[in-house]
């Protein structure tokens, strides 16, 4: 399941929803991404997430489908917020459920690495020195490249 929304999400409720009433799941891994209060050595006032409605959902679904195909997962969830966010607020949630922990861990990392490099979101920061578009990081490209099949 994937969701793009302005509203906050509840990680505990989403984790529980994924495994409640099932006894085939042995491992649930979650990732919560948060707005950090500092950027480029400056205090961050707020961050606004722009996205490409339509393509965002398609890309997230594609990424999730790929994870479900590559790992023995029971289920997966991606929730990503858009709009204005303050330091300390939640941005993104990824949850993976699997019979065993290795698949759940790997798939969650894969989902984050792919989401970071493929899902059409752009972060715009309001900092002490003014407004700045966040630049893509080479380390994110390298992280995503780890999963490319030989």
């Amino acid at each position, binding site marked *: 399941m994937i969701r793009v929304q302005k509203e906050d999400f509840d990680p505990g409720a989403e984790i529980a929803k994924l495994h409640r009433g099932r006894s085939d799941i042995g491992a649930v891994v979650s990732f919560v991404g948060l707005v950090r209060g500092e950027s480029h050595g400056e205090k961050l006032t707020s961050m606004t997430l722009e996205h490409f409605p339509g393509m965002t959902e398609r890309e997230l679904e594609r990424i999730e489908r790929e994870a479900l195909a590559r790992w023995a997962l029971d289920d997966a969830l991606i929730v990503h917020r858009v709009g204005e966010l303050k330091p300390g607020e939640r941005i993104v949630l990824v949850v993976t459920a699997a019979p065993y922990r290795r698949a759940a861990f790997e798939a969650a990392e894969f989902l984050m690495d792919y989401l970071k490099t493929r899902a059409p979101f752009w972060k715009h920061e309001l900092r002490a020195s003014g407004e700045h*578009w966040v630049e893509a990081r080479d380390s994110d490209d390298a992280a995503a490249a780890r999963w490319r099949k030989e």
Partner: protein
Amino acid sequence: MKLLYFAWVRQKVGRGEETVDAPGEATTVASLVKWLQSRGGGYADAFADLKRVRAAVNQEHVDFSAPVRAGDEVAFFPPVTGG
């Protein structure tokens, strides 16, 4: 052809979307960009450094060598920074 712009590409172009009648020689993303650059102003600025611009055709990531045709939706944006 429908064009969409996001993030600083949108800011430089000065609009988020527009419908254009691209000339016949704009058969790929690259040649479409060449035509957009020729319109000058915000377009020239937005497409000044193509290493910093990505494209999607009909909501699929593509290289600049990808074909475009009338009726396509072509989007331009910086490398993504979500998550």
